């Protein structure tokens, strides 16, 4: 650990961003089958991380070199939390970490949601898109000028509600037995558009869901920021491996995003 800290201190002391470094795992809990919440102790990320920014995680196995990016889900003092699903070998290894273990990370990376304007931020997440929106709720709650309404869609178990409930002014959630986030948005439409604060949608989740959310927003003229995923090589903008098509051409999801507006993406 000491070594990880020394690396960060040396970089910051010279006016640079911390490179990859080793941190301590503070907590690991399984929220749902195959869904893990991991908390690391990292003062730098804790004080700089903003909603939708992500952190590159690295596995211990040196045959798996590429970063596993995860969105920050919550920050408490020096502790930074993430929620991730086990989808392959890398996340399987990371889910097996235990408190006190060491793990290599780098971040925070990417651009955050823009929550500068006072608004009712509607946090629309599906599946493993929840982490940045929990963090957004936390951030907005600390700001005071805005409100937040969480709109979460799950496959089955509503595993993230208890976290977002701590911060969001209102939480609505749904699972596949009942419908999806569009079902919820339809139900809430009057409430959202009729309030004092103008609604702004922040969204993260599977691509088809985000496209549906974007078009729901477009039809109602509601501003919409979307946090994308793409396979990454570096996470910090050096490799141009993580592009997405935008109206301005192919942009890097890691460094130009992960947050893009509906207009930038050209989604109708």
């Amino acid at each position, binding site marked *: 650990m000491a070594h990880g800290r020394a*690396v960060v201190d040396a970089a910051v002391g010279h006016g640079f961003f911390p490179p990859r470094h080793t941190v301590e795992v503070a907590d690991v809990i399984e929220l749902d089958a195959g869904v893990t919440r991991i908390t690391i102790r990292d003062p730098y990320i804790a004080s700089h991380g903003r909603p939708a920014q992500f952190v590159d995680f690295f596995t211990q196995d*040196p045959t*798996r070199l590429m970063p596993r990016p995860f969105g920050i889900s919550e920050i408490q003092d020096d502790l930074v939390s993430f929620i991730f699903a086990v989808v392959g070998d890398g996340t399987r290894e990371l889910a097996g970490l235990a408190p006190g273990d060491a793990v290599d990370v780098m971040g925070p990376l990417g651009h955050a949601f823009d929550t500068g304007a006072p608004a009712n931020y509607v946090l629309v997440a599906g599946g493993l898109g929840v982490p940045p929106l929990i963090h957004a709720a936390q951030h907005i709650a600390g700001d005071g000028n805005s409100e937040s309404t969480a709109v979460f869609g799950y496959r089955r178990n509503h595993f993230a509600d208890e976290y977002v409930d701590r911060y969001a002014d209102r939480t609505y959630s749904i699972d596949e037995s009942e419908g999806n986030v569009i079902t919820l948005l339809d139900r809430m439409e009057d409430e959202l558009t009729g309030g004092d604060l103008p609604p702004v949608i922040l969204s993260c989740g599977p691509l088809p869901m985000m496209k549906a959310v974007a078009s729901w927003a477009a039809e109602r003229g509601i501003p919409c920021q979307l946090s994308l995923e793409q396979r990454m*090589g570096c996470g910090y*903008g050096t490799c141009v491996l993580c592009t997405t098509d935008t109206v301005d051409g*192919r942009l890097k999801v890691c*460094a130009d995003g992960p947050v893009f507006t509906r207009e930038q993406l050209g989604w109708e």
Partner: protein
Amino acid sequence: MNDNATNTVPGTDLYDHEWKHPTLVAGVPWKNPVGTASGTFQYAAVRWFYDVSRLGAVTTKGVSPVPWEGNPGVRTAEGPASNINAVGLQNPGVDHYLVDDLPKLKEIGANVVANVAGHSDDDYAEVVAKLADSPADMLEINVSCPNVSAGGMSVGTDPVALSRLITRLRGMTDKPMIVKLTPNVTDITVPARAAAEAGADALSLINTIVGMRIDTRTGRPVIDHVTGGVSGPAVLPIGLARVWQVRTALPDIPIIGIGGIDSGEKALEYLYAGANAVEVGAAALFDPIAPLRVARELDDLLDERPELAARLAAGETWR
């Protein structure tokens, strides 16, 4: 256990260490024998992590006459101890390079190797013409990219086409010209010799090796372009053998060794194989300061090898 983890950094003096062992590549002084490899270094991204002018050289992303979009969709997959990339040479074009990256890098005093991409001889010539009067320190002609359908690797695998191209470019500038070779050939000494005879001042090798992965959940290739270029630790033995072969065939030409370098020790293997300097590629994806750390580790390893250090400083090589 993981060589790439910064917790193996032998100290935290990366940011102000004074280099002890410079080298000379085709007459151009490098502060140390370690540069970045093209395509894995974007100044706008790396500048936040360290002062890139501390490196022996920075090789910038391949530039083409006009902006290129690269390949759509998923561009990368992971292999065992490797990265597979199919960027397809996305870049904002040479004009942008001349007003943005290049002047910024020269302003901070970096030793800049400008990597040149093209789909045709005319493409390459147009870029070289523009770079001829620029402050770039060296040019690296990339005839070895496996991820574009025209030009790129096809030139690098055909000695006649390669000779014609390099002869033409040679006539356009006095800047030290490096030709970057592909390992995707039966005998790399053939294009190496063709490039040298056509006037290349130096050779760099290897570029990536054609590879792919399949997602067993879908049965489909991970990368939309299907194949990409393999790089990273897995290719180390292949890169070393190619440098050894080219050095054996061409005893005098400066060689920049590339492929799988993520430690000073691996850089040293390339120097023993006959390279004058090295470039660090994929390792920088997994840790931005990897090239600086490799340079730092190598600097100490060269202390224990004064004869090798002296040869490098004089622009000579071990073999």
